[in-house]
């Protein structure tokens, strides 16, 4: 792999930029691999990269369409680790530490920007909950800072701090190490680095079935023929229910849509990530200048990737309520991604009841921030067959045993998150 650098760019520029090569190969699938990863999104490609880097195994990534074309390219790019429950804190903080070195690690600029992830509090009870979460985070060694109303107003001057504000602001809590990253670059960076380590990335290759004998998976059927493997990992969040269904499995997952929206690009006006303890609307500004908005899921099962218009109205109303200046902007685009909504809001990282068939999915609407950590733990799982300690709380059987990881504390309903 030729390294990317300022020097290489300068040298290439002198030669008329004719030095560019494809960032990864497009090989024909072999008959057999040690490990097959189904799904060429961020999580699957990260898994492939860490597998190839840390373990001596042959790996193929099978992608039905194109790399990063699912939820990796549809999220609102927010990265943070300030969750309340210890299992999420441990996994997401491990992930955040990997994010901090990712561009160097991959020799690919993922544009990770630690601009801070701010949660607004709108009432005394919001502030109590934020303080409680902040204390828990600091006890776990994760940065959290409670902010007064005045400090919030100084950090984001465009917030409506008036007496008549639709969402009065009492204060906030910020994780300064949180921020955003360029989501496509994450997929491409991991793909390029994994390819350089010998991983075969095979696009336009849909898995249509599993070869299972004696309760063990021995390979997959695909639109490009059968491929054998010692272990198979399903990393297709959004379509986990469908792909697991090909192996006869049913999951605690409902596929629902999450929408995102961008406005026309404007000069810098919001230089942090704004979220809220009570209003489900999140706001940031991309490097291109677009205001990126997201909100609640569509809350009914669908694989259509077509969002309901009422959510656009709701998110726009909330965003304008928080930052009135946004009312002047035109919305450019909206889109939807299909997310795996689980029965407790947590991911599923486990071996399935079919031996050697592993799954990493169920990331609900919060998978992007976990990309690096998820790949890290799943790589070890696919290499050794044992679930990594950081992933053990997210087992498939926790719904039967009652060891739920319910961050939102809303019970066993995927559509009430």
């Amino acid at each position, binding site marked *: 792999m030729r390294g990317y650098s300022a020097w290489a760019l300068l040298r290439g520029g002198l030669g008329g930029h004719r030095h560019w090569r494809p960032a990864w190969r497009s090989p024909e699938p072999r008959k057999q691999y040690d490990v097959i990863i189904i799904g060429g999104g961020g999580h699957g490609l990260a898994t492939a990269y860490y597998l190839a880097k840390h373990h001596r195994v042959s790996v193929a990534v099978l992608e039905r369409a194109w790399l990063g074309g699912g939820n990796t390219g549809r999220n609102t790019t927010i990265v943070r680790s300030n969750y309340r429950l210890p299992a999420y804190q441990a996994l997401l903080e491990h992930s955040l530490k990997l994010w901090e070195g990712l561009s160097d690690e991959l020799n690919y600029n993922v544009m990770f920007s630690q601009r801070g992830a701010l949660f607004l509090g709108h009432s005394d009870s919001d502030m109590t909950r934020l303080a409680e979460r902040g204390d828990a985070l600091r006890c776990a060694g994760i940065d959290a800072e409670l902010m007064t109303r005045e400090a919030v107003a100084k950090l984001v001057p465009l917030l409506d701090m008036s007496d008549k504000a639709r969402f009065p602001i009492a204060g906030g809590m910020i994780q300064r190490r949180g921020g955003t990253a360029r989501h496509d670059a994450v997929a491409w960076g991991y793909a390029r680095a994994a390819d350089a380590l010998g991983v075969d990335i095979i696009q336009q290759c849909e898995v249509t079935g599993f070869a299972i004998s004696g309760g063990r998976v021995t390979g997959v059927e695909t639109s490009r023929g059968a491929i054998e493997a010692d272990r198979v990992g399903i990393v297709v969040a959004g*379509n986990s*229910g*469908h792909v697991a*269904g090909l192996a006869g499995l*049913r*999951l*605690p*997952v*409902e*596929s629902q849509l999450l929408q995102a929206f961008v406005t026309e690009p404007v000069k810098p006006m919001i230089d942090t990530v704004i979220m809220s303890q009570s209003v489900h609307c999140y706001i940031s500004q991309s490097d291109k200048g677009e205001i990126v908005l997201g909100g609640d899921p569509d*809350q*009914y*099962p*669908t*694989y*259509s990737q*077509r969002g*309901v*218009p*009422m959510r656009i109205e709701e998110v726009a109303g909330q965003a304008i309520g928080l930052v009135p200046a946004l009312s002047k902007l035109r919305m450019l685009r909206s889109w939807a991604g299909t997310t795996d909504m689980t*029965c407790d809001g947590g991911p599923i990282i486990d071996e399935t009841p079919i031996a050697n068939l592993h799954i990493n999915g169920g990331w609900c609407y919060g998978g992007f921030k976990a990309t690096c950590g998820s790949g890290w733990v799943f790589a070890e799982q696919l290499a050794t067959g044992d679930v990594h300690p950081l992933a053990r709380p997210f087992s498939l059987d926790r*719904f*039967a045993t009652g060891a739920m990881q319910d961050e939102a504390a809303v019970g*066993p*309903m*995927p*559509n009430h998150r």
Partner: protein
Amino acid sequence: MLLINCPLCGPRAQAEFNFERPVETIIGVDVPTAELVERLYTRTNARGPSAELWRHARGCRAWLRIERHTVTHVIASVAVWEPQS
């Protein structure tokens, strides 16, 4: 957005309705624990036809059984929910 033909009110926008749960996850009062866990927590989650319990929450408030395709969004039937159905 879905246009749902409520048997009591006529065609109304999805905004008036709440999705509640897939029909397969509705449980009886005295089911054994294993069946309860299986039905409460797992889903077929089909990429295709799906039978679901909805409520016309911002309308007549009736509970409805809707048969719907999860990719094309075509609604095959809407009926007032009857527990024995």
